[in-house]
């Protein structure tokens, strides 16, 4: 096991991986995730524990521009037949749609036939693309995190701070042609305690060694086409953990509005985000 935090958190690497995520958005998801993991592993192997900016820049330069990598990965990656993609997304979205959306959809179809085309566009628009977990929100956690890896799976763990706010920042990108509005977390998607989410406004923010500074967060928040946002996922930790026990998440579920539809998008985190016991003070639930 080996800590990879310093390398992963380098601003140049963050920036490169964000560009790569954007470039890979048009590939089939399993291919995009695989290539992202390969590039992350390459960076971990190629860089020392505490690399200088010059060392990082040299390794990234040798890797090549993200757009070129994505173009290369698209060669031979037989594009899924458009019909298949459309029907799969349509099926997924229809199963997720609330009954209000059904009624609304029916009314739209009956009253305004032209609206059907628009609806299909919403139904088949790409989901928000994940960029993985960015880092722990609070310095108390950031400074005590332990990063581990086993069997190809990465995990970052911090001690639980019972009764206090803890959280992580994730990144999302809207690769569809429509503005998507993040409404909040899906109910019960975070098992650590009462949770909520906030989305960064498109203001200037800075990365200080892996922690975000100067960002302003709000909710609901629009994510226009082609833009990315950070999402703070916060919770007041109340889960009961014995000494040595851990509870973690591998994904976050967001409620998202696109056009007339409200749906739940599952955002994979690419690594496990864990709290470790023991809990202090009263706790209410078990993972």
């Amino acid at each position, binding site marked *: 096991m080996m800590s990879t935090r310093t390398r992963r958190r380098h601003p140049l690497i963050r920036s490169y991986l964000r560009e790569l995520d954007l470039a890979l958005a048009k590939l089939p998801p399993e291919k995009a995730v695989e290539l992202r993991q*390969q590039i992350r592993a390459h960076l971990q192997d190629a860089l020392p524990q505490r690399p200088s900016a010059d060392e990082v820049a040299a390794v990234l330069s040798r890797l090549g521009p993200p757009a070129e990598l994505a173009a290369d990965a698209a060669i031979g990656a037989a594009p899924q037949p458009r019909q298949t993609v459309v029907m799969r997304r349509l099926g997924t979205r229809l199963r997720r749609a609330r009954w209000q959306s059904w009624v609304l959809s029916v009314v739209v179809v009956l009253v305004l036939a032209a609206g059907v085309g628009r609806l299909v566009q919403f139904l088949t628009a790409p989901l928000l693309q994940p960029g993985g977990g960015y880092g722990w929100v609070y310095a108390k956690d950031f400074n005590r995190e332990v990063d581990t890896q086993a069997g190809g799976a990465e995990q970052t763990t911090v001690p639980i701070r019972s009764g206090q706010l803890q959280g992580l920042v994730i990144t999302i990108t809207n690769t569809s042609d429509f503005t998507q509005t993040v409404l909040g977390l899906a109910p019960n998607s975070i098992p650590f305690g009462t949770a909520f989410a906030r989305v960064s406004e498109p203001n200037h923010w800075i990365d200080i060694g892996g922690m975000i500074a100067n960002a302003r967060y709000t909710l609901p928040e629009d994510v226009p086409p082609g833009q990315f946002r950070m999402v703070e996922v916060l919770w007041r930790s109340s889960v009961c953990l014995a000494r040595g026990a851990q509870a973690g998440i591998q994904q976050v579920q967001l409620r998202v509005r696109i056009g007339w539809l409200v749906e739940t998008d599952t955002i994979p985190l690419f690594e496990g985000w864990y709290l470790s016991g023991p809990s202090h003070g009263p706790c209410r639930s078990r993972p």
Partner: protein
Amino acid sequence: VLALLELRPRFGLELVRDLAASDGLLTSDGTVYPLLNRLRDAGLVTSEWRDEEGERARRYYSITPAGRETLAAFRAEWAQFATTVGGVLNHREGDAHVAPDGGR
């Protein structure tokens, strides 16, 4: 890539460095990974995660029997191709029948 993997399994960066050691075989390090994935999809390469003591887990790539067959076929074709091209490049004027008037 197949020729290197024929010798022994390698992880990504190892493969990149060995290829980079041969001038001109690698335009950028990142291109190795899409290539490996295509070879894997074609059944010529396989991969597995290995946990070695004191090291983080790494994904090692190995050549498959189908990959060895493809490599052997390529070697045979390449040898033939290299012989043909070498014959053309090393062709000397005196070796051919050329008319005294230059062929006019």
